[in-house]
Each structure stands twice: as structure tokens, then as C-alpha cells.
């Protein structure tokens, strides 16, 4: 009987002890916290979307910059919260609706930014840009974050998209980099005949498939087509857009993409390319670290990866292969309601400036600020892409970035449906056109 009672007693004792111990530690913590406060230390809350696991290079750079900043400003403490891309988007919306935005955070441009600015959640940053970063940005990038002449975001990245491909697989089946769309279709056919998935795409969230659609629209209807549609100069039911949607479905019919792609996320689809099950992957330059500098990817794989520009469509109006689909990636905002607005602005400007230098050498991503490549040791693919950028004739900002959240969501749904053949190209075009028309009223 005694023995039976011993166990519960021990359990109770352990619980009490652990409570007592945690009681001991928590006052310690709060003591150091209040000590910090009495030193006059200001806390800036900063939220970003580069977790250690999936974006190691960016994560490390940001951490380094934060450390440098804290060293230069002993009175300031930067508190970070880090989430993956999609979770970050969701959380930012939730925080915004309860008015609890971090002091500094990341935002996308154009359509994403607009409701936040209309809700007066972001503060204009022109003063701090003029003081610190006047001529640093690549022309045209900063403007994507401007509404009514005021700039609400400081761009960090500039992304353009390419088709990345597995050189070894191409070599194995004697394939050459395609210059025209019909050459591209032949490649798809050859790869299919040999049991290789030609291209990976994940359409659960819709936007990766939209890259294919946007490039086809660019090549068939000319580089300004989609931007004109957004600005109401042309209609979405333009024959060129119908043609682009038809081409997407004909790619699907040719088994260009892995099976069941409308149920896969971008990361899941990326797995097919990284495992060398798929030969091509149309994505933006934010993936560059995985093909150049990231220590987590085996060198053998990196050596196999090359890229080419989206091929030209025979008879299309987009005749310049140097026209890209892309756009500014994320930029930094400072919250209007921040209690430490001035410090937050200063920190954001510091981060953008430092990021410009460090992202070049350490991460291999393209910053939105001008880069002086001289004297830096860079991966050849990276140098090549910087060169492309300087000779780019046009960069069409992603359609869903330019559109309002309503239209963007619809576009994502419809792209998944288009790839899954749930709707016809005509329905795709009509439904989007109807949503755009409703909006402009």
C-alpha cells in the first residue's frame, strides 16, 4: 500500500519543485529586463521572412547586420520574429487587422501595399531615404512602393525570373538551350519520351504557375500587355491573353509539368527539381543561393544548374528576349503607430544599405540597391545575371503584385484551375476580366 502511494507523492513533489524552480528563474529574467529598461534601452520589433532553415544565407546576413547595428547603438535592442513566406503574409494581415504591426517589417509592392497605406498603417519614408539612400536604388524599383508621391517601403530585393535547368539531364538527351518556343516544346517532348518530368511547378498557391502564363502573355502580346491591363488601357480578354492561356493548357496536355501540380506547394514542386526528377524550373532569382552559395546544397548539384531566358514565341509581339517578368521582392516598412518610429526608420535604412553590400557577396541574391561588382569575388552565374539586368529592356512586375488583393486571389485560384484543366482558357479570361471590370467601377 505504501509503495503504491509513493508514486503519486513523487509526482506531486516533482511538479512542485519544477514550479518552484521556474519561479526562481522568471524573476531573474524580469530583473534583467527591467535593468535593460532602466538603462534606457529601446526595443525595436522587427519581423522578417527568412527563416534559418529555408533561407539560411539571408537569415545569416540579417543577423549579422542586426548585431552590427546593436554594437553601434548600445541603447537599442532589435527583437526579431521570423516566419516562412506564406505564413508571414498571413500573419501580417492578422496583425494589421488588430493594429499590432511590428515596428519594422517586410512588405511587397504595388497591390499588396495599397490597403495598408490606405489604412494608414505604414509611415512615409521619403525623409530617411533622401538622407541616407538618395541615389542608391536601381531606377524604377523604389517607385513600386510609392503611392501618391510618397514612398512607403524601402526595397531590398529585385527579382527577375528565368528557366533554370539541369545541364546534365539536357546533355544526356542532347538538348540545346531553346531560343524559340517551338524548340522549347521539342525539349519537352524529348524529356517526356525519356521519362523525365520536363518542368516542375507547384500550383497550390497559384503564383508559380502564373509565371508561365505571364511570360507567355509577354512573348505573345508584347511586354507592356499585362501592365496595360492593370492600368485599364487594355482589356484582359485581349486575344493575346486568350492565346497565352491556351498555350498554358497545351503545355499541360503535353505533360510538361509533374502530375497533380495543382495540389502541390511551390516548395514541394521545387523538391522535384532539386531531386533531379524534373529538368526545368521557372522561378525567380531569389532561388539563386540554392544554385550558387548556399552551403546546404551539394556542390555537385549546383554545378549542374544553368539558366536560360524564356524563349521567344514565333509570331508573337514580344520580340525581345531581354524582356523579363519580375519585380521588386520584399521591402521594409515602418509602422505608422510605432512608438519608436525615428529609431525604427534609422534601423531600416541601415539594414537596406548594409544588405546591398552583403547580399552580393554572401547570399548571391540581387539587391534593389546598385552594386559595385569590381573587386568582389562572385559566382559566375551571379555576374551573368547582373549583366542581364543592366541590359534588360523591360521588367514586367508580376501581375498578381500589381493587381488588388481581390483580383490577385482570384488570379491564383484560376491559375490552379487552368493548370488542372478545371476551366477553359475562355472562362479563365472572362472571369478575370469581369473581376477587373467590377473593380474599376
Amino acid at each position: 500500500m505504501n509503495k503504491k502511494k509513493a508514486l503519486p507523492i513523487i509526482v506531486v513533489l516533482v511538479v512542485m519543485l519544477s514550479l518552484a524552480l521556474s519561479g526562481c528563474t522568471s524573476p531573474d529574467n524580469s530583473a534583467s529586463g527591467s535593468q535593460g529598461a532602466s538603462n534606457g534601452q529601446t526595443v525595436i520589433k522587427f519581423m522578417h521572412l527568412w527563416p534559418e532553415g529555408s533561407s539560411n544565407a539571408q537569415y545569416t546576413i540579417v543577423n549579422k547586420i542586426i548585431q552590427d547595428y546593436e554594437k553601434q547603438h548600445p541603447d537599442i535592442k532589435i527583437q526579431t520574429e521570423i516566419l516562412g513566406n506564406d505564413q508571414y503574409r498571413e500573419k501580417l494581415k492578422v496583425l494589421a487587422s488588430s493594429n499590432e504591426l511590428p515596428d519594422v517589417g517586410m512588405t511587397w509592392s504595388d497591390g499588396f501595399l495599397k490597403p495598408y497605406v490606405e489604412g494608414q498603417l505604414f509611415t512615409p519614408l521619403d525623409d530617411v531615404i533622401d538622407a541616407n539612400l538618395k541615389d542608391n536604388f536601381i531606377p524604377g524599383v523604389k517607385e513600386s512602393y510609392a503611392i501618391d508621391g510618397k514612398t512607403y517601403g524601402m526595397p531590398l530585393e529585385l527579382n527577375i525570373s528565368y528557366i533554370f535547368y539541369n545541364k546534365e539531364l539536357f546533355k544526356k538527351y542532347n538538348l540545346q538551350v531553346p531560343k524559340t518556343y517551338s524548340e522549347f516544346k521539342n525539349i519537352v517532348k524529348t524529356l517526356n519520351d525519356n521519362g523525365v518530368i520536363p518542368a516542375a511547378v507547384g500550383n497550390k498557391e497559384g503564383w508559380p504557375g502564373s509565371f508561365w502564363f505571364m511570360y507567355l502573355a509577354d512573348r505573345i502580346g508584347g511586354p507592356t500587355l499585362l501592365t496595360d491591363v492593370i492600368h485599364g488601357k487594355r482589356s484582359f480578354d485581349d486575344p493575346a491573353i486568350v492565346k497565352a492561356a491556351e498555350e498554358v493548357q497545351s503545355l499541360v496536355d503535353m505533360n510538361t509539368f509533374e502530375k497533380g501540380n495543382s495540389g502541390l506547394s511551390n516548395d514541394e514542386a521545387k523538391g522535384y527539381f532539386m531531386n533531379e526528377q524534373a529538368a526545368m524550373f521557372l522561378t525567380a532569382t531569389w532561388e539563386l543561393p540554392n544554385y550558387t552559395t548556399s552551403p546546404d546544397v551539394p556542390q555537385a548539384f549546383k554545378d549542374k544548374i544553368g539558366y536560360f531566358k524564356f524563349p521567344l514565341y514565333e509570331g508573337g509581339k514580344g520580340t525581345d528576349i531581354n524582356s523579363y517578368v519580375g519585380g521588386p521582392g520584399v521591402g521594409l516598412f515602418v509602422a505608422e503607430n510605432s512608438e519608436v518610429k525615428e529609431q525604427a526608420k534609422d534601423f531600416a535604412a541601415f539594414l537596406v544599405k548594409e544588405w546591398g553590400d552583403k547580399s552580393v557577396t554572401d547570399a548571391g541574391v540581387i539587391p534593389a540597391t546598385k552594386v559595385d561588382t569590381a573587386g568582389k569575388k562572385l559566382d559566375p552565374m551571379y555576374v551573368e545575371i547582373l549583366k542581364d539586368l543592366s541590359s534588360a529592356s523591360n521588367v514586367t512586375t508580376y501581375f498578381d503584385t500589381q493587381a488588388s488583393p481581390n483580383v490577385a486571389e482570384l488570379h491564383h485560384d484560376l491559375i490552379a484551375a487552368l493548370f488542372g484543366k478545371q476551366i477553359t482558357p475562355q472562362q479563365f479570361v472572362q472571369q478575370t476580366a469581369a473581376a477587373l471590370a467590377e473593380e474599376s467601377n
Partner: protein
Amino acid sequence: MKAVMSNKSAIALYVLPALLLILIIIYIPLVLTGYYGMMDWKGFAPMKFIGLDNYNKLIHDSMFWKSTYHSVLLGICSTFSLLIYLAVSMVLASRIKGANLFRKIYLIPMLLSSVAIAQLWSKIYDPSNGMLNHLLTSIGIQNPPLWLSDPNIVLFAIFVPIVWQYAGFYIIIYYAALKNVSEEVIEAATIDGATPWQVASRIKLPLISPVFKVTIILALVGSLKYFDLIFVMTGGGPNHASEVMASYMYGEAFSKYNFGYGSAVGFALLLICLLMTWLIRKLTTSGEDVQY
């Protein structure tokens, strides 16, 4: 004690904290949601009162009714799966060998978080590299179904893990109820020559029927407002093929910034849940509770 219980103000004092809490956390937001439903509101910009426009739009919104239909389907599926759980717990409650072990096996899915379950099943369902399709191709099926991207099957493909997830919960409830049936009654019946089948259908089932009614309501209402697995696995896609009421509400409020309309959807969801609960109570309170 008696003195306290007869003192009305003391009773009020004791009830007050819990009452306040439940008012602030549940009832006031409920009313507010209905009120926000009458607003044209982005979630952070100023609100504009538009009366019943949102509710009017809701009634004519085919997408909403489609998601309601999906939620009701899920409700029906989970209600029928209760019968399976009941059968399983009947077997477990009779003294068979290893009942203890099986009880734990059924309980384990309940210990996993929904997101972990969603990740697990997404991997199982992966069209080319998933366990399920590997198995199907290895036994000679050339084109196995694309579980999460075929709009015709995606809904049922998601129902499987949902039903699986809650198995342990209901089995435990039934198991406890069955263990409560007094041994004497069963023994008396057995002596009178009742077969095990008769014992189960004439004694055990009627005696636990109140519990069964409660679980029907739990399963039905739980299904109507179900959200997590669906949100993580497909996000309601592809193209709304697996959209349920709660994910539709989320999409409207947080992806499209139609907070007002999202609130209206949420309020409608509440009304539908209330209606269902009332209906089930109406249908199941016909007979008196059985006693032996």
C-alpha cells in the same frame, strides 16, 4: 455552505467572474461579428455601414453554398463514422486480449497536432513520390488518382485524415460510457439466455444512447466549423474544390481583405450551426432515456 447557497448576492458574486469572461470572450464578439457583417470594411481602414447588403450578397453567393454543401457532406461523413467508432469501442470494452494496446493505438492520432497530421497526409498523398501512389503503382495501377489535385476526389481524400484524426476521441467517450453500464444488468441478461448480440443491441446501446446523441451533435457541429486540416493541406483548393465554410470565411476576410463580408459568412456559419444543433436535439429527444 447552506447559508452561502441561500444568499443570492453571494451566488451572483461566485458566478460573476466566469460569466464576465465568457461574455467578453464569446458572446460579445459573436454579436460584434454579426454587426461587422453589416459593414464594408477592409479590416483596418475606416468602416462603412451598408446595412444588410453583405447578407443579401451571401444568400446569392453560389461559392458560399458550395462550401456549405461541402461542410454538410463532412458532417454526414463524420456522423456515419461514429457508428464505426461505436463498433470498435464495443469490441474494446468487451474483455478481449490486447484491448488496452488497441485503445492506445486508436488514441495516438489525437495526440498529434492538426498541422503535423496535415503534413503527414500531404506526404502520403503526394502524386508521384507519395507512399500511397507508390503502393498503387507497385500493384500495377498505371495512373493512380491525384488525391489532392483532382477536384472530384480531393474532398474525400481530406475527409479520411479528418475522420482518422478524431477516431481516438470518440472511441474514448464510447469506451467510458460502455464501461459505465453496470455489470449486474449484463450478467442477469446472460443468465436469462441473452446472446452477446442481444446484450449489445438491447442493453448496452439503449443505455449509452444519451452519450451517442451528444457525440452526434459534437461531430456535426465540429464538422460544420472545421478548418485546420483543410487549410493546411489544400487551402480550399484547387479552385475551391475543397472549400468549406470556415476556410471560405478565412479567405474572404484575410486573403481578399473583405472583412465585412467575411464576418457575414462567419455569422451565417454560427446560425447554421445553431440550427443544426436544434434540429438534432429535436430529432433525438423523442423517447425517454432508458433505464433498467
